[in-house]
């Protein structure tokens, strides 16, 4: 067996690996390889000892007091640092509280005033010049209904600002001259609860003569009779004869 081929195997044995049977038999018979193994083991032991001596260095006597001082300072800062995370949370809560009134407000039409909030949050009192919303729409909480329906009515409260803005828009209806009374009757007819307090008259489109001119009136026509030979048959027999 070649000693050179066993060199790596001998190094592994020196590092602690169990030798194979062949290598073990060679080491028994070869004193040179046995000497290499001993040298490797001695070298490793010296290296470990060198490392152990190097790492046996002691810190200076001033290290312990310094460590105690710094550690006590850090621990004294600890209670304050634990509460630092509360600062951004508190700032966020304050900012949200300040922005909440602005978030609930919807811009209204110029010159109109927002409806005062009611205890239920759903009743709307429009301005005198505004159309009144029918009670069936404006007061959903007044309806008799199931608990589920009442809950839906309560869930509509958050829409109160939007409804206020809708009512606050000044309606504009162009009525032909002399048609105010007819419009009022029409509105009352289709919405019994709708009350129009006043009608604002504007210039409107070009005046139209709403009375039908006499020339366009339909006159009754004179009834003309067919000649006798063109009178339609009156019985089935006559009709059959005519068909033939």
């Amino acid at each position, binding site marked *: 067996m070649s000693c050179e081929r066993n060199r790596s195997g001998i190094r592994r044995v020196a590092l602690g690996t169990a030798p194979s049977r062949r290598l073990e038999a060679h080491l028994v018979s070869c004193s040179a390889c046995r000497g290499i193994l001993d040298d490797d083991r001695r070298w490793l032991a010296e290296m470990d000892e060198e490392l152990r001596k190097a790492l046996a260095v002691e810190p*200076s006597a001033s290290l312990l007091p310094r460590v105690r001082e710094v550690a006590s300072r*850090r621990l004294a800062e600890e209670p304050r640092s634990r509460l630092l995370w509360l600062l951004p949370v508190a700032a966020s809560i304050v900012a949200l509280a300040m922005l909440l009134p602005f978030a609930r407000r919807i811009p209204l039409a110029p010159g109109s005033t927002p409806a005062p909030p009611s205890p239920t949050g759903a009743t709307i009192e429009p301005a005198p010049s505004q159309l009144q919303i029918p009670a069936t729409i404006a007061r959903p909480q007044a309806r008799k209904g199931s608990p589920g329906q009442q809950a839906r009515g309560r869930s509509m409260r958050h829409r109160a600002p939007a409804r206020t803005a809708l009512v606050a828009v000044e309606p504009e209806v162009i009525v032909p001259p002399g048609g105010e009374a007819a419009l009022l009757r029409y509105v009352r007819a289709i919405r019994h609860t709708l009350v129009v307090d006043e009608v604002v008259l504007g210039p409107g489109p070009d005046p139209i003569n709403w009375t039908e001119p006499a020339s366009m009136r339909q006159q009754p026509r004179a009834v003309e009779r067919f000649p006798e030979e063109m009178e339609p048959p009156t019985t089935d027999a006559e009709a059959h004869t005519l068909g033939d």
Partner: protein
Amino acid sequence: MHGPVAIPLAGAVTRAVGLPLDAESEEDLVEGSRLAFRVAWSVLRQREDAEDVAQEALSRACRNLASLRDRGSFRPWLVRIAWRLALNHRRASRRRERRELVLADPARPRGVEELAAASESRARLWAAIDRLPEKLRLVTVLAGIEGHDVRAVAALAGVPVGTVKSRLHAARRRLMEALS
């Protein structure tokens, strides 16, 4: 009335603020600072720098003490902090030295301590250790500290005993190849 109560958990830190400790906790403080210093010294080989790193490591351990629940994990935690701080410190020092070498006189005499520590065999050994991969280097250093067997190294490095054995074997083999 109860007298002072001994606090066994992480005694090295509670001792630092003057709380009453048992003898084991007092030992924690001394051994913890020594261990952090040796780990830092194995990387830096400068006493002052190693002490600064050990002080900083114990300071950080105190600051993050609330996240530590097991007394047994205090020393491995301290070792990892000291090891990482020492590596960062050495990188910064090397950058600084490179800058200074450009400006300084190349014939500048070396320091007395540096010369004393520069025996040839030891310098070659540390140079070879510095070239080891980080995982192999850490177990080599921890195993080189007196009183640390394989189990202690495994506990400090936070790896299984078998992993420590294989890493130690690989590290010693590389050192042999580099030095012989």
